[in-house]
């Protein structure tokens, strides 16, 4: 009897472990490719979490630092089966990749000095560089960086690549700047949202008013308000980007835009 109770208590964590194990073992292409598989397993098949709550949750998880897959697993696991569920889901998500890399690392160290392997990797390395540069430029495009705000990515590249300053400091500085900017824009929109009637479209949705407020740049560029889709808040092309380092500049350009 006692065993049975214990088994029942373990059932959900085990299922969570197995679901995330499968997802971790078969998703290529990083966190965002994983998301639809998680949705299928957690929302459609097991019906552990309702659809809208799931996407709300993902929106929150995406704004956190760290490994996206791990954050998602922890949060889903915690929601479904508490602490045990959180850890079961997390280990399910990371054990496949740890195992695969450990196996590959031993093999790779054995064979990497083979001329054949060396030749193959000589071809692969330039491709990897391209595969890192391409998404960064795509991100700049989706962030709607203008000539004025281009200083931010350029300064970041210069500081990290040329001056060899630790990216940690650059990130901390950028966070501080963005936070100040977010506070300023938060206050501005609180006043502006009530004054301007033409901006009513953006303030109608009372659920998350502040995230709906478009940045000055996007107001100039696109007339309709960017609706942040839950799937792609960080990487979506719609999401507008204010400049973190110029909080003073932005309200002015906003007036110009309106």
């Amino acid at each position, binding site marked *: 009897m006692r065993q049975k109770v214990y088994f029942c208590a373990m059932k959900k964590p085990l299922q969570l472990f197995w679901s995330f194990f499968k997802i*971790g073992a078969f998703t290529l292409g990083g*966190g965002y490719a994983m998301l639809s598989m998680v949705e299928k397993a957690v929302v459609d098949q097991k019906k552990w979490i309702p659809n809208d709550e799931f996407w709300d949750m993902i929106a929150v998880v995406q704004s956190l630092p*760290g490994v*996206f897959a791990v954050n998602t697993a922890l949060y889903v696991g915690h929601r479904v089966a508490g602490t045990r569920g*959180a850890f079961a889901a997390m280990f399910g998500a990371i054990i496949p990749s740890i195992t695969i890399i450990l196996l590959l690392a031993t093999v790779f160290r054995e064979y990497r000095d083979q001329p054949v392997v060396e030749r193959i990797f000589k071809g692969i*390395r330039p491709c990897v560089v391209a*595969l890192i540069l391409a998404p960064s430029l795509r991100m700049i495009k989706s962030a709607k960086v203008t000539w004025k705000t281009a200083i931010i990515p350029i300064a970041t590249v210069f500081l990290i690549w040329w001056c060899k300053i630790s990216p940690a400091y650059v990130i901390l500085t950028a966070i501080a700047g963005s936070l100040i900017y977010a506070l300023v824009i938060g206050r501005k929109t609180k006043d502006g949202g009530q004054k301007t009637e033409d901006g009513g479209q953006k303030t109608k949705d009372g659920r998350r008013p*502040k995230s709906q407020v478009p940045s000055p740049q996007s107001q100039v560029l696109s007339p309709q308000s960017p609706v942040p889709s839950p799937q792609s808040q960080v990487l979506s092309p719609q999401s507008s980007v204010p400049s973190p380092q110029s909080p003073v500049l932005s309200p002015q350009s906003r007036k110009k835009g309106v």
Partner: protein
Amino acid sequence: MIYLQLLWVFVKIGVLGFGGGYAMLSLIQHEVVDHYGWMTTTDFTDMVAISQMTPGPISINLATYVGYTTAGFGGSLLASFALCLPSVIMVYLILRLFMSKRNNALMDNTLKGLKPAIAGLIFAAGLSMMNTQNFVDFGRGQYNLSVIICVLAFVASYFFKANPILLIVLSGVVGFFAY
């Protein structure tokens, strides 16, 4: 000592790693290649290629590999769990205590502001990998095949959104026959 260093480095990366796997590359590269010298840029590039072709998060893959090469099996587990540790703490503290709607909106705006900086961060990681170890035949009077591969892969990835695994396999095949 090496265990403490691994723990510190990957906890730091876990805390500051905004913006997904690629954004973490720059942090990992700085610590692992530039600061501690645990890997060469070429090793790092190879690992990124392998991570791209294997399932699972790229940062977990890198943490496992770095931990394994510096401190063996125990090191690989330690580095991977160190990377997850801030997430665990966040799920328990931040999500439960501080993630009200209002703070969430503030967070959204902050992240949007952070995005151009993160894009620059990723770009810098790519630039740091452009050296003569990775571009073996770069220079005057040579075929510059590596540059051609890089440009073609960039065009395919940026404009046509080609599958990265396919691109890596193709350039591996090119490398096999050309070098």
